[in-house]
């Protein structure tokens, strides 16, 4: 327990939070946009930093900071999914939104479409570890922290997820190529 006077945030905490925000807000925002789309990314990003503020004394220093923040983001985004699903029951709509947004920034490309479709058809765990590695650029150690798994498990899951992505992609290619040829 602590007295109220103990718990007043000293200015050093404020300064630390300011630095933390400056250093990581773009990365966290991108993390959120990759999973939630633009509409919900602002609020989710802000929620991540609100948690960081409330728990500023728990935020680790140095290189562990980023993994800690991504860990919070992972759960905030998870909660957004859950809330959305509770409200609408339309979890698939979110999945569709996630794969549609990239189409805004790339030209029509059947191969790219297939990759994204393959990604969206993976289980959540597989897709997430790929996103963390490929898009968010997290290290093996950071991914282990975010997903609360051991580093060896990161290797195994990444290997498995890549294999499944390739398998899904090839399966999609096999079914669509005859259609494309006939068209």
């Amino acid at each position: 327990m602590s007295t109220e006077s103990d718990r007043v945030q000293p200015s050093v905490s404020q300064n630390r939070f300011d630095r933390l925000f400056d250093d990581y807000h773009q990365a966290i925002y991108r993390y959120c946009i990759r999973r939630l789309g633009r509409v919900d990314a602002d609020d989710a990003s802000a929620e991540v930093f609100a948690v960081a503020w409330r728990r500023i004394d728990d935020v680790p220093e140095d290189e562990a900071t980023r993994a800690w923040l991504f860990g919070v983001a992972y759960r905030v985004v998870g909660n957004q999914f859950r809330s959305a699903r509770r409200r609408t029951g339309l979890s698939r709509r979110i999945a569709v939104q996630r794969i549609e947004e990239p189409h805004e920034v790339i030209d029509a490309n059947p191969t790219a479409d297939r990759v994204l479709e393959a990604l969206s058809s993976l289980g959540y765990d597989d897709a997430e570890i790929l996103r963390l590695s490929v898009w968010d650029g997290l290290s093996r150690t950071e991914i282990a922290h975010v997903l609360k798994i051991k580093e060896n498990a990161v290797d195994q899951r990444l290997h498995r997820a890549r294999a499944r992505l390739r398998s899904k992609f090839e399966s999609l290619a096999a079914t669509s190529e005859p259609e494309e040829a006939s068209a």
Partner: protein
Amino acid sequence: MIELLESLDPAKNTEVDSVELRALVDEKVGLSTQMRPSVSRRWKAWPIAAAGFAVVVVAVVPWLFQPDPINLLVPDLASLNGTAGVDRLIPLAAGGVQTMDVDGETIWVMSALAGKLQKVSALSGAIEASYDIDGHVEGVVVGGSYLWLSSYDHDGEVLRFDPEAGGVDLVIPIGGMPGGSEWFGERLWVSNQSGDMFEISAMGEVLSTRRGDVKGQGMGYLWINDPDTGLISSVSPDGATDEFVIPTVEGADTMSGWGIRKVAEAGGFLWLMDGDYPFGTNLSRFDPETGEFRSMGGYTFGLLDMVELGGSLWVTSHTDHLLLKVDPDSGEAVRYAVPGKVGGLSVVDDEIWATFYQPGGALVKLGREQDLVESRDVVFDDWSLYPYRLLCTGSSVEGGPTILLEPFDWIDYGSWSVVQAQLSASGYVVCANGYVEGESTPAQRAADLKQALDESGLPGPYLLVGAGDGAHSVRLFADGRTDVAGVVLVDPMPLGFAMFYDDLLPGWGHPPWSDLDVGESGALGDLGGIPLTIIGQDSSSVFGSDRFIVGAGRETAEALDEYWQNGLEFYASLSTNSNSVVASGSGLDAIVSTKPDVIVAAVLAQLGTEPN
């Protein structure tokens, strides 16, 4: 492939407006208002009812049906009589949060969804009168020979109810959805959610209005929260204000950042409850003698109400189905399990009464302390937002298995409380995944459970009970283990059912079931000769019901039912030692709530134990 995926990053070259994002953060944590939460984040007194309604409806009504709040599928509440923690249970008009107030040995309960005000004798347990109240009414306060009801109708109003005449005789507009209300100093103090407070005489005359949010009584004062400054201050019976001002109760650094829910007196202190709904965890303490304000830290999720009895502070958690007994001096708490979601607490003749809003709707006299069952909280993973927890009750018979209850994805821990209470009373350690919120998948839950058992040292063998898509995590957990004594699957969701449902009824939406990855399921072995009981829904109350057939069409209904029944047969085939049970009148994904007795009987049958 990976390089191509990398180039398809949807956030590539995307930048957020830093100033706008920072402003949003500041608003969330209250930094922009000098360390106080913004008014918009202030606790609203009555969303509890809406959430309670949602919980009940979501839990026990197939989502496709038009919910009929008065005739929800509810468990046989009589079965709770005699359950540990329950001394006497009085079923009330079902559904939603019931608020109550006490007048001598009479308890008045307002059931919001049913629109009924009921008068109950604490002595006999009899419902002496029941009145229909028009409109959406929640709060009830006794004072000045009347009852004062907080109504959401007509932009917020207070209804004066005359118990002699048995009806509302005066309506007082309050210009906003109602907030807290108290009878104090022979007048009513009521606030609206815009932060306006009204002082009203027994005659119904508005004596004064000012800014303020009524939080409760204690130490001989009324305590109000100034919505503009965040300060908590006292009002004496003669109306004098600000004798005490608690300087920094609200603010991101002191509690959750959501302000406070309510106050109560215990042990010579004023206690302040975290205002974060629905997951508030913290209590704080103010000592008027010394002026010390102290955060006592987090206790458990979902703190909702508190009263003083016997020098202790008694606090309820609606998410964890707990009653905490807090020592006012040390702040230490003993945790007792209660078999229901507690909406409110009151003390009558030195006994604690509570309203349960799930399961069903009931007024409950809680058991004496020596009859209550302690709950242990085994925390495994203190992750950033919501810790993974096992909430355990009971003590084990010699060599008896630890019973593990695994929830389905969209129902929180508390749904197991009746099953847990009854199995604990039969002499077993029973642990339920203390899930309250956060994303999870069957695989994650199985991994969490394995690690939690490893770290907690809870002894095997284990008897696993999984409901809905909890069947997946139970299978994943049991796969390859030799310490599983038995498995009970409660309405296990067939593999691929969510997709099948979507295909048949596109756009209808369904509960957020977590399907199991086909690869994962294919890798799972069967259960060999492990005792396995499949408890299935009653088709006639779900896909085979007239209401579903009218909505979906007979052909679709039959296809869904066939898929589901085939799924149940598949699960039964996983063990050479399986049996199946139909939970008559259950409802889809609702057996845990509506037929807990069937689950208890199935578990005890596997264990060869008679019900206690």
